[in-house]
C-alpha cells in the first residue's frame, strides 16, 4: 500500500498536472507534534503555502477546487495540505485530494485527538477556524520580506494567483 502510494506520487511528478486527474491513492502523513516545524524546515527560504482543511468543511472543499485550478496553471507552486480530520478518514482524504488533482501536494492528516496541541505549534493565534492558510514568502537577501501571512476563510483565486506570480517570479 505504502509503496503504491509512493509510486503514484512519482508518477504524478513525471506526468505533471496537465494530465488526467490523479486516481491513485497518495500517502497521507500523520501530522503530530513537530510535524509543522518539519514542513517549514524542509523549505527554508523557499516560498510555499500550507492549507488546513477538513472533509466536513464545505468552504474548504470549494477552496480545494480553486487550488486545483491554481496548481494546474502553476505546477511549481509548493502546496502543503493538512487535513484536520482523523487518520481513520485517510481513504476519504486521499480520494478527495486525488479527485482535485492535488495528489502531488504534500498531504498530512491530524494524528492527535488533542488538536489544541497541534494548532498551538502551528500558530498560537489560530482557534481552529477553517480553512486556514499560511503563505510563506521566499527569502529576499537573508530574510523573508513578508515572513508569514495567515488567513482564515475561503480564499479567492485571484489573490492567491497574485501571490504565486510574485513569489515564483512569473510574468
Amino acid at each position, binding site marked *: 500500500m505504502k509503496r503504491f502510494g509512493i509510486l503514484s506520487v512519482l508518477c504524478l511528478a513525471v506526468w505533471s498536472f496537465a494530465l488526467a486527474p490523479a486516481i491513485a491513492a497518495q500517502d497521507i502523513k500523520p501530522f503530530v507534534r513537530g510535524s509543522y516545524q518539519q514542513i517549514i524546515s524542509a523549505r527554508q527560504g523557499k516560498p510555499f503555502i500550507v492549507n488546513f482543511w*477538513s472533509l466536513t468543511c*464545505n468552504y474548504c472543499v470549494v477552496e480545494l477546487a480553486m487550488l486545483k485550478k491554481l496548481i494546474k496553471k502553476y505546477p511549481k507552486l509548493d502546496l502543503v495540505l493538512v487535513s484536520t480530520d482523523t487518520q481513520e478518514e485517510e481513504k476519504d482524504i486521499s*480520494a478527495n485530494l486525488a479527485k482535485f488533482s492535488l495528489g502531488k501536494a504534500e498531504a498530512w492528516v491530524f494524528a492527535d485527538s488533542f488538536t489544541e496541541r497541534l494548532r498551538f505549534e502551528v500558530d498560537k493565534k489560530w*482557534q481552529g*477556524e477553517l480553512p486556514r492558510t499560511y503563505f510563506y514568502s521566499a527569502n529576499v537577501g537573508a530574510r523573508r520580506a513578508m515572513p508569514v501571512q495567515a488567513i482564515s476563510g475561503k480564499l479567492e483565486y485571484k489573490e492567491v494567483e497574485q501571490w504565486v506570480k510574485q513569489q515564483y517570479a512569473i510574468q
Partner: protein
Amino acid sequence: MNYLTIALFLAATLAVSPVMAADHASHGQTGAVASATAPVDREKVWKEILAKPSLAVSADFDEKGRLWLAAMRGQHIYVSYSDDRGVTQSAPVKVNAEPENFLGDGENRPKIIVRKGMIYLSYTQGLAKPMSGDIRFSRSTDGGKSFSAPITVNDNREIISHRFDSMAVNGKGYVYIAWLDKREQSAAEKKGEKYNGSAVYYAMSDDGGISFRRNIKIADHVCECCRTAMAVDTDDYPVVTWRHIYDTNIRDHALVKLDGKMAPVRLSHENWNIAACPHHGPSLSIASDGIYHAAWFSNAPERHGLFYARSTDQGKTFSSSLNFGNFEAQPAHPYVLSLGSRVYLVWKEFDGESTGIFGMRSGDGGKSWSAPAKLASTSDVSDWPLLIGENNRAYLSWNTKIEGYRLIEIDAEIK
C-alpha cells in the same frame, strides 16, 4: 434511588475526543458547492461523525440544589443527578427510548433546564444527509424517573440543517427554543438562487412542552455553525443572540428580544470578514437587575480574542467591549453567568502542554473585573466550560477525558 452508581459513568463513557471542527457546516450549499463536494462519500463521512462519542455534558441545578446532568452516550441521551456536587451520581435514565443519532461535537450539546419539578431537554438529532439535523425536545414531569417521547420542534421536515438549538424556560413555564435553520437556503437552491448562510428560527410552547407553536423566523443570513444562546429577561421574554452575517461575510453578533417588537441589534463590531464559519458562538446571561451580559469570540485582524459587553437598556445598546483572555494561548469558548450584580466569565486557554479553564469575576454588574485565575486544567481533550448557579454560588461545570466530570465553585478559586 441507587446512589452508588458509578461516578465514573460520565468519565468512562464520555472519555473520548471531541471532534473539533467536525461540522464545519453546510456553508454555501449552492450547485457549485454540491458538485465540488461530490468526490468524497460525504454521507459516509457524516455517519462516521455521528457515530463519534461526545464529551459534551450539560448541567443545571434545581431549586433544592440537586445537580442534574445530561450527556450523550451511543444513541441515547441520559440524565442523572447528584446531591454531592457531582462526586456521585444517580443511575442515568434514558431520555429517548428509540435510538437516535445525535450531534455532540464542536458546539453541539444537549441542553438541560430544571425548574419547578420539571426537566426540559433539547438537542439536535443527526439525519441521514451531511450537516442535516432536527431540533428535538423531551421533558420529565416525574422528577427524572421517565421522559416523554421526544418531539421534533422544527415544522420544516426537509432533510436539511436545523441545528444549534438553545433553550430557555420563563417564569410562566413557557419553553422557548431557537436554532439555525437552512429552509430558506434550501428553497433558494431549488429555484437556482443563492442564499447566504442560514436563518435563525424559534418556537415556543405555552403548555409546558407538550406541544410547540409554529416556527417563527427571527432573522435571515446568519453564520451556519456557531452555537446560539438564549436567556430570559426580567419581563419574562426570551432574548436570543447568534453570530450574524453582515454584508457579504462580516461575521459579528446580533441580539434580539422575542417580544414581538424589537428588531435585531448588532452586539459586536469587530468586523470579522471571513468566508467560513468559525464554529464559535456567543454566550448570554440576563441578571435579576435586568442587565444583559454577553461574551463572544472574534479573530478579526484589528480586534481579536474574547470579548464581553453589557447592556443596561434591555439590549438596545451595549457598552464598549472588554477584550479578555490571553490571545497567545488560543482563548476560546467564553461563557458568562450573572447572579444578581455578580458576574462570572470562564473560557478555555491552551499553554502548549495543557488546557486551562480561566475565570474572572465582577462584583458590580460587569463594570469592573478581577484578574483572571486558572480554575482547572487537563492535559488531553475536553468539553467547553459552562457556568451554572445555585443559591448565589457560581460553579464551573466541565468534562474532560482524563479527569471526567468536574464541578468547581468559582468564588473559592478567584481571590
